[in-house]
């Protein structure tokens, strides 16, 4: 959905051909979500089918240019004005892994949490280094867009580290207070019988 709306937003700014569209999309989002030409063509076909985008008359050997229609602009205005839905949680491998780990026999949950935290923290450090390369004061508009995409990834990584800290503390507390050992010892098995 976001690729479709993102391409529509670009075509509302100025007419573009498919290759330009791909370049602009990647440029404006810092190359974080690369597109292949197949995706771009398919999405363009659907936008045309739905009357949101129209091809301009071809001129000689020039590739076909596309622009947003009035309907497309209305659709775009609705997109800007409507919050992104957050009702159904994204399927997240780590959440699934941890939910299963606390009940599965033979898994050392504390070790799992610490290894994951090390990995996520490394990713956070790497993102921060990319951010550090962008001047803090008065970044150019392109840098600002890229910097905000990075911020999104930074905050997501931070949330994961915080959640892992929380999991570590809760698991430790469970072990201390109830003798529950999620590292799948006999105690845990007994507690659940």
């Amino acid at each position, binding site marked *: 959905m976001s690729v479709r709306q993102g391409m529509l937003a670009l075509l509302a700014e100025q007419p573009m051909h498919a290759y330009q569209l791909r370049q602009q999309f990647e440029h404006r989002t810092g190359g*974080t979500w690369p597109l292949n030409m197949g995706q771009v063509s398919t999405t363009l076909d659907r936008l045309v089918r739905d009357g949101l985008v129209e091809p301009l008359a071809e001129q000689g050997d020039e590739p076909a240019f596309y622009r947003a229609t009035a309907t497309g602009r209305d659709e775009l205005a609705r997109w800007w004005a409507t919050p992104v839905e957050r009702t159904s949680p994204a399927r997240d491998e780590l959440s699934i892994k941890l939910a299963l780990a606390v009940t599965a026999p033979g898994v050392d949950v504390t070790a799992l949490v610490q290894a994951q935290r090390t990995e996520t923290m490394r990713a956070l450090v790497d993102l921060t280094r990319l951010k550090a390369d962008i001047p803090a004061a008065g970044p150019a508009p392109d840098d600002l867009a890229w910097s905000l995409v990075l911020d999104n990834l930074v905050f997501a990584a*931070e949330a994961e580290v915080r959640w892992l800290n929380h999991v570590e503390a809760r698991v430790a507390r469970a072990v201390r207070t109830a003798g529950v050992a999620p590292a799948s010892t006999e105690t845990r098995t007994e507690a659940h019988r």
Partner: protein
Amino acid sequence: MVLSLRGVTRVHGSGPTAVRALAGVDLDVRLGELVAVMGSSGSGKSTLLNIAGGLDGPTDGAVTLAGDELHALDLKARARLRRRSVGYVFQDFNLIPALTAAENAALPRELDGISGRTARREARAALREVGVEALADRFPDEMSGGQQQRVAIARALVGPRRLVLADEPTGALDSATGEDIMRVLRARIDAGAAGLLVTHEPRFAAWADRTIFLRDGVVVDGTGTRGGPESLLAGTRR
């Protein structure tokens, strides 16, 4: 090596009520290096910071500051070494309200017994390093929180001081200002200092070269960086 801890253990109290705040901690901080310390409340972060700065002593183990083992020195020599090697940055800035930015930054040097003129010159240089020389004559209540924290970093590293111990330096600042402070701290350390940063915010810890996690006084895991940032994103433009 600016700071080195070897097998540092700290037990508060004795007998059945004894609390082991740190247990066998090894830690090295080199010039140009910033190390972040994370952990939940009561994990030993504050004790670690106090011991690193010589404000508290280990029950067992050794702390070496700027090449001298702290507890091999007598009290007077230890206080002098501590004063001349270490500066602190706190969450609430802790600037003296009746002194200007320059006077605040010069104060540690004046307490070192340096002449007023030299202290003022060094304070200006320290303020310049963190980008607030233009605010030298302002009082703390005439500056924003971010500006005050820059002055606090200047004061911590004025003159010969090479080690900054920062206790939640971004804690009283909004997210964007907190990031500015981390940029300044990072740049200041890259320019020739070392730092130990206690924070509960992972995105600020990520400005450090390494992060260690404490739990019940023990270092449970630590991170350095592996590979470059390029490995992280599928197709960055940098």
